[in-house]
């Protein structure tokens, strides 16, 4: 009997051994599961996946998308300055409190518009910094263009930020007036509180950085570029704006002249051909592209959403004035001027009737950021204010008349600086120029606001002040 038990024990042992073997192999398989804990995201990439030249270029192209955003040139960088200088230009009749506050020059520090422009701006700047930090991955044949393009974005955005959030260059002491923080290092991917609390650099320092970036960009960018990418002339066009703010008329004229003389751009024969295009028009030195799938918004945001009549858009941004009684906007034009009647009648989403500019009337079209017409007006005005031999060889009066002639306005025979101010208004209304022109010349913005009124600046966003004690709020909002 004992023998029988011994035999069954041996069989049991064998069976058990077989099972244990199976068990151990199962366990070995199971511990291989450890690798399964590293799951990569399928809809996003991580920073260590930026490895090739194409990846770095993709980061650079991300900036175009940020420029197109409604917090960038897709709407706010153009629209908000026009709402601040709304008199005779635009009248916001919509219900959005944050936009009404801008027009009333009564913004609050919690304004989502201020926060939007600020945060989008720094996203652009930081993305350029990232590209520059990885420039070695770019093939040497393209390195200049990519460097130039990255600096173009950074320079332009710093310029927009210092214009909106800081006092004008023409106002007071630029070496002590607070500007905006200058951020030149690539952002970290993990929050680092030791480097995060930047403070506002002076207006002068910001302008110097802008000039440095845009000048380098102009040197490195090509003359022509596909897909409406930045070119040397786009950088120079912005430099022209920078120098005008600084009253550096010689440089302003030089830059504007360079763009005109390049021969790459032409004024379109009729004014309407410069707008609502698919792709840049011959006149666009720099423009933001849009399509049905890629645009600044069609319901609650986007420059066309506000300016186009309901039911296309919201129709919240009407012309300040009435054609019938030649009031407001319309009083600035001769009757035969095409630009006077480049308007149409419509009503807002809340059924308020009014006039609308035809410049922003169809969705999914290119947003012109700088047009050649502006360059003529800049060169003319800079040459006039500089005095002496005009840079480019054309008299200021010729420059102003080229623009006037295109729209059928009468030719002027005797001009002064104010004529250029007025012509800029006639040509560039609703395109975000008015406020900056009035500010740089210290002209009153409207009957109630001098050029240096504190409420003509955007407030530093409250949440930024809350999070970063090194940031100082603008005086009017303290």
């Amino acid at each position, binding site marked *: 009997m004992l023998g029988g038990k011994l035999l069954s024990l041996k069989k049991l042992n064998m069976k058990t051994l077989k099972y244990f073997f199976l068990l151990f192999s199962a366990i070995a398989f199971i511990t291989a599961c450890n690798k399964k804990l590293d*799951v990569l*995201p399928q809809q*996003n990439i991580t920073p260590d996946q930026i490895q090739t030249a194409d990846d770095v270029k993709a980061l650079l192209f991300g900036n175009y998308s940020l420029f197109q955003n409604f917090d960038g040139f897709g709407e706010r960088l153009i629209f908000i300055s026009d709402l601040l200088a709304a008199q005779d230009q635009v009248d916001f009749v919509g219900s959005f409190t944050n936009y009404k506050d801008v027009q009333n020059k009564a913004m609050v520090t919690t304004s989502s518009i201020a926060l939007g422009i600020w945060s989008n701006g720094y996203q652009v700047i930081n993305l350029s910094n990232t590209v520059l930090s990885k420039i070695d991955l770019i093939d040497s044949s393209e390195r200049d263009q990519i460097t130039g393009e990255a600096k173009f974005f950074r320079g332009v955005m710093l310029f927009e930020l210092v214009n909106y959030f800081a006092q004008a260059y023409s106002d007071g002491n630029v070496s002590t007036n607070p500007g905006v923080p200058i951020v030149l290092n690539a952002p970290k*991917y993990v929050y680092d509180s030791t480097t995060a609390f930047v403070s506002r650099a002076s207006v002068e320092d910001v302008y110097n950085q802008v000039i440095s970036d845009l000048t380098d960009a102009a040197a490195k960018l090509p003359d022509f570029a*596909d897909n409406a*990418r930045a070119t040397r002339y786009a950088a120079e066009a912005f430099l022209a704006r920078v120098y005008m703010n600084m009253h550096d008329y010689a440089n302003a004229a030089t830059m504007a002249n360079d763009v005109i003389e390049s021969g790459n751009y032409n004024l379109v024969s009729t004014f309407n051909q410069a707008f609502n295009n698919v792709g840049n028009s011959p006149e666009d030195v720099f423009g933001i592209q849009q399509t049905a799938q890629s645009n600044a918004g069609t319901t609650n945001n986007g420059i066309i959403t506000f300016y186009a009549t309901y039911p296309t858009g919201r129709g919240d941004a009407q012309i300040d004035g009435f054609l019938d009684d030649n009031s407001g906007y319309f009083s600035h034009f001769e009757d035969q001027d095409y630009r006077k009647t480049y308007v149409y009648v419509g009503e807002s989403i809340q059924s308020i009737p009014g006039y609308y500019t035809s410049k922003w009337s169809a969705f999914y079209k290119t947003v012109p950021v700088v047009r050649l017409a502006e360059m003529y007006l800049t060169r003319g005005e800079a040459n006039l204010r500089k005095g002496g031999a005009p840079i480019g060889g054309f008299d200021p009066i010729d420059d102003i008349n080229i623009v006037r002639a295109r729209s059928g306005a009468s030719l002027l025979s005797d001009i002064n600086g104010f004529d250029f101010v007025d012509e800029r208004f006639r040509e560039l209304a609703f395109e975000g120029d008015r406020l900056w022109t009035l500010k740089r010349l210290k002209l009153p913005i409207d009957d109630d606001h001098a050029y240096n009124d504190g409420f003509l600046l955007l407030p530093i966003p409250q949440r930024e002040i809350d*999070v970063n004690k090194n940031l100082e709020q603008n005086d009017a909002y303290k």
Partner: protein
Amino acid sequence: MLCASLLMWVTMYAQNRTVSGKITDAKDSSPLSGVTVKAKGQTNVVLSQQDGSFTITISTGTNSLEFSYVGYADLEVPVSVNMNIRMSASERNLSEVVVVGYGRAVKRNLTGSISKVGSKEVENFPEPSFETAIQGKAAGVVVESGSGKLGQGIKIRIRGTSSISANSQPLYVIDGLPVISTSQSDITNDPTNPLADINPNDIESIEVLKDASASAIYGARAANGVVLITTKKGRNNQKTTFELNTYYGISNPARTRKFVDAKQYVNLIELAAVSDGTYDFNNGISGYATLDDAISDYKSWYETNVLDNFSLGTDWHNAEVNTDWQDILYKDNAPTKNIDLSATGGNEKTRFYVSGFYTDQQAIVINNRFYRYGGRMNLEHQATSNLSFGINMSVNRSQLNRVTNDNSFSTPGQLVAQLPISPVYDPQTGKLNGNTLYANGLFDAQFNSDKQSTWRTIGNAFANLTIIPSLSFRSEFGADILNLYQEAFQGKQTQDGAGIGKANVIISQAVNFNTNNYFTYDHQFNNNNKLNAVLGMSYLQNDSRGASANGENVPSDAIKNLSGTTLITFANSTNNRYTFLSYFLRGNYSIADKYLFSGSIRTDASSRFGPNNRYGWFPAVSAGWVLSEEKFMKDIPFFNFLKLRASWGLTGNAEIGESNFLALYGVSNYPDLHGYVPVSLGNSDLKWEKTAQTDIGLEFAVLNSRLSGEIDVYQKKTSDLLLNVNVPATTSYQSYLKNLGNMDNKGIEVTLNSKNIDGAFKWTTSLNFAYNKNKVGDIGGQIIEAGFDLTQRAIEGQPIGVFYDRKFVGVDPQTGDALYQGEDGKPTSDYNSAARVVLGKSNPDWTGGFTNTFSYKGFDFNIFFIFQTGNDIYNSGGAYMSDGFYNGLDNQTTDILNAWKNPGDITNVPRIGYFYGSGYQTSSRWLYDGNYIRLRNATLGYNLPKSLMQRIKITSARIYVSGTNLWTSTKYPGDPEVNTQTLGNIGGGQDFYTISQPKTITFGLNVRF
């Protein structure tokens, strides 16, 4: 060494003994034959005889017998001489077997807090998902169905809400497999409930693991509690038993709001005209010469633009048209049908349970319907004396025909805003009235469709290996596969179709793959000390993939899906995966069945956690003292059973989302220049939210075990809450996720069961109630808001989800202005200067259920109430339906008839008027007390006599009539079980044209043969 082990084998094989006893039904003491009797840990099985007696031979190594019988709760009873076993389907029994994580335990020996709900409570409940059936059945488990729409997500909170940003739903496990319980549907509509795919009639028992000792075995996913669902299984050596359940029900809304009718509406409009005219004249706004001029001018505006305009030429003076729009949106007597057939049984080696079912339920709101059919097979086979294996599998198809969410103008619920003077059909054309105040949702109801169909397969294959009698190994491989296909279409004539026709498609596939592998060691020492230990691992992988596309511009309404559209405006795909790898160990040690100790530890690693905190450790300890076994207690006959237990443990909430610890770039689609833009900052320290829970419990049975109960007191401290920390935007980011907040929950749970009368007429009562107090601790000074209209916030020091806005304090009798509480505490009519204060909260203080069961001869009657106090409900729709026309000319609720009319009127309803009405802003004006008590279910059944049944060879047959939500008592003017937000942590108790719960009468039949 070999000799010693040999000796051990020999002695083990030598000692057998015989145990016998009798098994009866606890309800009527009739003998139960065919009950499976098994020695615990062994394979030896016998059946009880016709007279209920049984005899079984067992060997040492086990000292308990397991009893199981179809329709009755499993018992595990220590061996004794002449065992007298009473089995019951619904009574609580200390010998009852309770499912715990990775194993089973006897209720008497539990040291943790576990609530069990049996199959009788869950089966044949006329709602799509089983969770509604457990409402009010388990103390501390608060189940909230937010709407009468079918298939909606259901909010369940076990011992309060323990998180702010992470999902607070419990973990659901079916037969050991964690299942998908989060909505896979269209994110623009309400979340749906994947648990509705499961057939409630397949459920044997539901165990809710509430405290840390019970749930920590599930580690990083257990902080919100764990709901274990066990499906029905066959029994060895059991003749195949068939069961047929069928019922037919009709549903109507349980509680609707009272709106004014056509005549009253006209009177209100006339009052508004007078009110506005008077206000205008008194304040010199338009410069009328006399009061009469003002009033007649306003009257003419109202009559022309409202009454004439919307009555479409009918005679509104005499209420020629009096449309009850609320009646139209609700379907009268919505039918529900169900049929369920199952078979269970087994021979010596194999046991099985198979079932098939079909359910078709129409909702009380039009166009909403849920139907589901499918089958299940649970099979286990004993291949050798050591090895058994099997499979539990169900395949179901469900289809949900949906309506739009409560916030859409097109949803049926918003039809109540239309005017009673508007006819349903245009008298000129005979077609649906297209000239209503708001776009007529009946067009959408007629021409739009939204169908979501899901194929759900839940399967689990397992093998059990007995290595030595006290040590076994179990391996499970399971998958939960959810395939969802949604097709929606909006016709050209409808509001949502915008005149051009739109359609979309969503395809979603979610797969949970899980494997559990663990050893179980069960040993009884000679001195009656027992040790049970479990050691194992588990691995879970979830893959969720989906694609969706939207299109518009259809030639006509003929093709009601995406292929009919001609312009695709949006298309995208998603792909997410998460994994969990875990190891666990648990030990239970009992000394003389008197002193019980338990300890467990689990380590969880997940792909969701940052690399610095990949692994988390979750220990738990608990102890129990069965005082009634002590000598000194035996002298006090009052207590039949008294046990004191305590536990402490750590659990985690891992619902922190995928890849949130990584810094990420997203794709940008600028025309022709495709790029990357930064999306989020990384945080390698990101990990689970941690909850430390302490529980002290007392279980007792007195008066000959006629009164028994359980009391638990608990405290949960949650820390490492996942919150967004603000950073300067100059870094390119505005915030990042960090574990830094904390929150507390404290409460008491009481369960009482009593057998009041136990003769031919039986009456038992079961009462459970629970109190929970939640407090938000430190959240880093952030302001975190949610809520539809009236803001709800997480405020430090307050319960989560407090309503935070201005307080409405009454009406100024002189002017009719609404008054609010100002900064200084005094009433002010200036809304903007009024202070924002905490007004109330949406989570209840006390919740519970009260059941009474009666039986006499063949009749049984069961009546069940649920109740809830301490919560508030905000009617977000009040700003439109109860504001007196300022926010719109909507139809009003009847309380507006008491509006202020003349100076000196004392009323709580401010001055009405489209132009100068008052009290129209969000405030506590539409915040109501949400306490309620509801007759959840009353069922009267009759078991046909056994003599009659035997003649037609049927084991038993019962017919019943049952009513659900028959009666409600509450101060809230609508249905108090309402939450349009359904699932969030902060938002809750918000009503926005939400559909009432259904009141259902069902007639049913259960037959067993």
